[in-house]
C-alpha cells in the first residue's frame, strides 16, 4: 500500500539488566502510520510510548537496543541505518517536536537564526528565499509580527510562543511525518488549547502525518484520528479515536477514561487500583491482570493476542473485551458528600497583598511603600471550617503565592490573615506560635522533591509527630502505623526510602505527613499534577475520604478546572494576583461568569472528540498586572472600553450566588455568554 508512510513491524526494544537478563521496554509492536493521518499514542509514564516515537525516527536511547523487528520508512529500515543516512531523513522527512521547547531552543541564538539554520540544513533555498520562508513559517504558526519575533531570543518569548517556534522549526524541512512528544505538557490550559488548535490546522493545511505522544487523553482526543493505547510496553488497544474514547473495550482504557475528572460531572472520578508493573516483572499472562476487574484464571497464565474487532475497527488485547462492549457508562463518578460546612469561619484573609519587590534601605527607614502594584493585591476570602476551597488560575496568577503566605513562608505586604477569628497569624514564620504552625500543613506538587531522599518513611512521618507532640518510642511507632493505615499503606512501608515507592505511594506518604500534625487546614499545592491520571483519581479519593473522617479544611491550588470541579466546594478564580470570581463550585461552572473564567472553562480539554475547546481570548502572557482598572483588561474579549482600563470593577452577585468582579452587568454577561 502506497499510503502508508511508516510501518513498524514486530518491534521489540529492551536493555540487559545487571544480571544479564533481557528486559523488554517495547514488546512486539506492529502498527502503520498512514499519509495525512494523526495518530495519538497514549499511556502512563513507563508505558514505552516515548521509546516507540523515538524508534520511529530511527533513534534508540543509549543503553537500549533493538532486539527484534523493524521500523520501515520508505521501505527501508531506519533502525539499521547509520548516522550519515539518518541525517538525510531527520528534519527533512521526519521531524520531531520535543516536550519542552524552552530547553530545546539554543538560548543565545535569535529565533530567526535558529529557523534559518534548520532551513539551510534541510532545504536548498537561497538566502533571500530563506528570509521569506522564515516569516512564512512564523506566520503559519500564528506568531504575531513575525519580523520582530525573528529578532528575539528564546527567553524573550512565552512558553506557548516557544512551542510555536519549535513547530515552525520542525516544519522548516517540509517533513512527511511529524513526531510530537508531549508538546503541550507544561503549558497553561489556554495556551495548550491554542497550540492543539494550531496543530490541527497544520495537519489539515500541510497534509503532514503526525504521531502525537501524550499521557493526556484530553489532548489526544482533540487532535488524533486514530489512538494507540500502550500499557507496559504493549499495544493494548488501537483504533479510530471515536470508538476508543466512546467505547473503550480494553479494561485499562476503560478504567483510564473513568479516572479522568470531567467538567460535566460533579464528584470524584473512579480510581484504578495498583500501578503499572516494572519492565521485566511480568513473565507470563496479561500484563494488566493485577489491576483488572474482569480478569479470569486464564488471564493469569496466557497472554492475550491483539484481536481485530471489525465492527468497531479496533484491535484489542483482552480475552474478555465482550463484557465491556455493551457497557457505556464511562461518564459515571463517585458522588461526593457535600461537605457539612459549619458557618464557622476558620481562616480569613482581609485585603492581603504580597509583593516580591525588595524595599530599599532608605524606604525601609522611612517606612515608605514603593511597590504600588504588588504581585498579589486585595485578596479577601473567608474560609469556613470543613470546606474545600480551590484557588484556580494559570501560571502567574498568584495562587501559589497566596498559599505560601498562609503557610508563613512569604511575608504579606498588607492585610491580615486571621485564624479562627481571634488569632492573628503573624506574617513571619519565626514569630508564629507552635500551635498555629501545627494547625496549617502543606502538601506539595512533586513528592520526589517534598520527601527527603535520605529518610525512610518512618523518619519522614516521625518528624511532625516528634516536633508537635513530642512522641517517642512505642507511642511514636503506633502513631506512624496508624497514619500509614489511614493513607492505605501497610506497616511494612516504614523501612522504605522514597526511591522505592511509586509516584502515588510517595504522594500518600506526603499526605500522611501532613495529617500527622492533626491540622485544621491543609494547603494542597497542585498535589495531583505530577501524577498519572489513574493515580491522581486515587489520591483525590483519598483526600476526600480523609476530609470526611477528620473534618479538615482544604485550600486546594490547581490549574486543572476539572480536578477542581471534582474536589472543591467553593472556587476562587485568580488572574494576575487579583480575584476575578468566587463562589460555590457548581455555580462557577455555570454562566454567567467572569470573562476570564469563561476563557478557562472554554480551554478545558475533555477526552471526548465531540467536545471541542472554545478559544475565547488570545493566549497572550502578561508579565505584570495593570496599574489600574480591571486585572483582565489586556486579554478580555468583552472589554467595554476606557472604564475597564481606568476603574477597578465592582463585585456583582449573580442569581446563583457567585460573586464576579466585572464592569459588565451580570444580566448582560448572561446574554453574551449564552
Amino acid at each position, binding site marked *: 500500500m502506497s499510503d502508508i508512510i511508516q510501518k513498524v513491524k514486530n518491534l521489540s526494544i529492551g536493555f540487559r539488566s545487571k544480571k544479564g537478563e533481557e528486559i523488554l521496554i517495547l514488546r512486539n509492536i506492529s502498527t502503520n502510520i498512514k499519509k495525512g493521518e494523526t495518530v495519538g499514542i497514549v499511556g502512563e509514564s513507563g508505558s514505552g510510548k516515548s521509546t516507540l516515537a523515538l524508534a520511529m525516527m530511527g533513534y534508540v536511547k543509549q543503553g537500549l537496543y533493538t532486539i527484534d523487528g523493524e521500523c520501515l520508512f520508505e521501505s527501508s529500515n531506519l533502525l539499521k541505518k547509520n548516522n550519515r543516512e539518518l541525517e538525510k531523513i531527520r528534519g527533512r522527512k521526519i521531524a520531531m517536536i520535543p516536550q519542552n521547547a524552552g530547553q530545546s531552543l539554543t538560548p543565545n541564538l535569535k529565533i530567526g537564526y535558529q529557523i534559518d539554520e534548520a532551513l539551510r540544513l534541510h532545504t536548498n533555498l537561497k538566502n533571500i528565499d530563506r528570509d521569506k520562508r522564515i516569516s512564512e513559517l512564523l506566520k503559519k504558526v500564528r506568531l504575531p509580527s513575525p519580523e520582530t519575533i525573528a529578532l528575539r531570543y528564546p527567553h524573550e518569548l512565552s512558553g506557548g510562543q516557544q512551542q510555536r517556534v519549535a513547530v515552525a522549526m520542525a516544519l522548516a524541512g517540509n517533513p512527511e511525518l511529524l513526531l510530537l512528544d508531549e508538546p503541550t505538557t507544561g503549558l497553561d490550559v489556554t495556551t495548550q488549547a491554542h497550540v492543539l488548535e494550531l496543530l490541527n490546522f497544520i495537519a489539515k493545511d500541510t497534509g503532514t502525518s503526525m504521531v502525537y505522544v501524550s499521557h493526556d487523553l484530553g489532548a489526544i482526543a482533540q487532535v488524533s484520528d486514530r489512538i494507540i493505547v500502550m500499557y507496559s510496553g504493549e499495544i493494548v488497544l488501537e483504533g479510530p479515536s471515536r470508538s476508543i474514547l466512546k467505547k473503550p473495550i480494553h479494561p485499562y482504557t476503560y478504567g483510564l477514561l473513568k479516572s479522568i475528572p470531567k467538567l460535566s460531572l460533579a464528584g470524584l472520578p473512579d480510581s484504578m487500583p495498583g500501578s503499572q508493573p516494572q519492565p521485566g*516483572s511480568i513473565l507470563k499472562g496479561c500484563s494488566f491482570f493485577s489491576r483488572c476487574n474482569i480478569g479470569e484464571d486464564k488471564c493469569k497464565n496466557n497472554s492475550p493476542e491483539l484481536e481485530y474487532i471489525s465492527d468497531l475497527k479496533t484491535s484489542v488485547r483482552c480475552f474478555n473485551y465482550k463484557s465491556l462492549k455493551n457497557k457505556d457508562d464511562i461518564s459515571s463518578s463517585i458522588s461526593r458528600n457535600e461537605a457539612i460546612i459549619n458557618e464557622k469561619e476558620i481562616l480569613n484573609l482581609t485585603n492581603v497583598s504580597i509583593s516580591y519587590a525588595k524595599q530599599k534601605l532608605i524606604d525601609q527607614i522611612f517606612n515608605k511603600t514603593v511597590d504600588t502594584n504588588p504581585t498579589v493585591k486585595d485578596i479577601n476570602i473567608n474560609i469556613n471550617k470543613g470546606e474545600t476551597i480551590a484557588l484556580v488560575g494559570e501560571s502567574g496568577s498568584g495562587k501559589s503565592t497566596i498559599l505560601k503566605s498562609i503557610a508563613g513562608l512569604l511575608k504579606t505586604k498588607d492585610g491580615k490573615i486571621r485564624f479562627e477569628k481571634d488569632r492573628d497569624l503573624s506574617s513571619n514564620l519565626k514569630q508564629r506560635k507552635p500551635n498555629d*504552625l501545627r494547625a496549617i500543613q*502543606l502538601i*506539595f506538587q512533586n513528592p520526589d*522533591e*517534598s520527601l*527527603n531522599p*535520605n529518610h525512610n518513611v518512618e523518619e519522614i512521618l516521625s518528624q511532625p509527630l516528634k516536633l508537635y507532640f513530642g512522641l517517642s518510642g512505642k507511642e511514636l511507632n503506633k502513631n506512624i502505623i496508624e497514619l500509614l493505615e489511614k493513607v492505605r499503606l501497610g506497616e511494612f512501608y516504614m523501612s522504605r526510602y522514597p526511591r522505592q515507592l511509586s509516584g502515588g*505511594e510517595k504522594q500518600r506518604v506526603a499526605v500522611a505527613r501532613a495529617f500527622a500534625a492533626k491540622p485544621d487546614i491543609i494547603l494542597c499545592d497542585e498535589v495531583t499534577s505530577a501524577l498519572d491520571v489513574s493515580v491522581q483519581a486515587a489520591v483525590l479519593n483519598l483526600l476526600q475520604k480523609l476530609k470526611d473522617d477528620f473534618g479538615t479544611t482544604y485550600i486546594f491550588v490547581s490549574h486543572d478546572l476539572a480536578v477542581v470541579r471534582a474536589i472543591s466546594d467553593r472556587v476562587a478564580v485568580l488572574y494576575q494576583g487579583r480575584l476575578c470570581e468566587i463562589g460555590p463550585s457548581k455555580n462557577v461552572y455555570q454562566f454567567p461568569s467572569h470573562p476570564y473564567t469563561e476563557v478557562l472553562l472554554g480551554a478545558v480539554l475533555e477526552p471526548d472528540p465531540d467536545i471541542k475547546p472554545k478559544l475565547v481570548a488570545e493566549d497572550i502572557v502578561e508579565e505584570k498586572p495593570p496599574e489600574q482598572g480591571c486585572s483582565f483588561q489586556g486579554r478580555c474579549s468583552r472589554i467595554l472600553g476606557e472604564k475597564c482600563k481606568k476603574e477597578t470593577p465592582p463585585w456583582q452577585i449573580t442569581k446563583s450566588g457567585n460573586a464576579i468582579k466585572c464592569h459588565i452587568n451580570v444580566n448582560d454577561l448572561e446574554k453574551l455568554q449564552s
Partner: protein
Amino acid sequence: MDIDKISEEEQKNSLSKVLEVLKTMASKPSGFIGLFILVFHVVLASVSPFLAPYDYKAIDPTLMLQAPSSEYWFGTDSLGRDVFTRTIMGGRTALTITFFGSLIALLWGGLLGIFCGLVGGKIDDVVMRIVDAFLSIPWILAMLLIVSLLGTSTEVLIPALGFFYGKGIVRVARAATHDVIAKDFIVSARARGHSNMSIIWNEIIPNVRDAILVEGAMRWSWMLLGFSSLSFLGFGVSPPTPDWGLMISNARGLMSFAYWAVIAPVVGLSSLIIGINLTADAFAKALGIDRSTKAPV
C-alpha cells in the same frame, strides 16, 4: 510495585551500608588497588615500631651511606641510620597529622558551608568574601608564617593545616547545600516550624554528607603533599623523628651517589598519595558523585 522484591532488595542499617560502599569500591581494579595501598600504609604505620630492625635514631658514623645489602635492606643515610627502619616509620607522623587535619577541615569547612548555604543573604556574602580572601593567600607562605611564630608542634600543625585545607570544603559544602535548599522537603520542614539546627541536622546533612566526605578525602591527599613539603622545607616535624619529607630533604644533596636514601621515602610518600587518590575516586564513584576537584598527582 512488587512487595517481595523490595523486602529482598534492602532493609539495611548503617553498618551494612558502609560495607556495601566498600564492596562497590573494591569491585573495580583501581578502587581495589587504592584501598589495598591505603590499608597497607595504615597497618604499616601502626605496627612499624615493632617491625623495625634497628633504632631509627641510632647514629653510627662508621656506617655512613652504605648501599643496600642483606643487613641494611635499603642502605643507610648520611648519618649512618638504617633507611628501611626510617622509611617504614616515616609515614606515622604524616598520616596522623594529616588525618586529624582533614577531620578538622571537614568539620569546620562543612559546617560553615552548610550554614552559609542555609542562611544566605548578607551573612553568606560576608563569610564567602572572607573565605575568598583567604583562598587568594598562598597557603605555604601563610603556613610558614604560622609555624615560625608558633613553632612546629603537632598542636599547631593540625589546626593550621585543618584551617587552610577547610577553605575549599566551605565552597563545596555551600554549593551542595544550595542544591538541596530549594527542594520542597526543606520548605516543608520550614513551614512545620523546625529550627535551623534541626533542618541542618535532619534534612541537609544526610543529603550533602557524601559530597563533603568525598571532598574531604581529596583534601587529605593534598594535605599530605602539603605537609611533606613543609617537612622538606624544615618546618614540619623536627629531627630525628623519621618523616618522608624530611628524609628526602636530607638526602637530596647526595642523590647522585646515594640514590637509595631518596628513593625509599619517595616511593613511600607517592604510593600513599596515589592510594588515597584512588580510594577517594572510587569512593566518589561508589556514592555516585561527580567530582570537580582533581587529584594532586
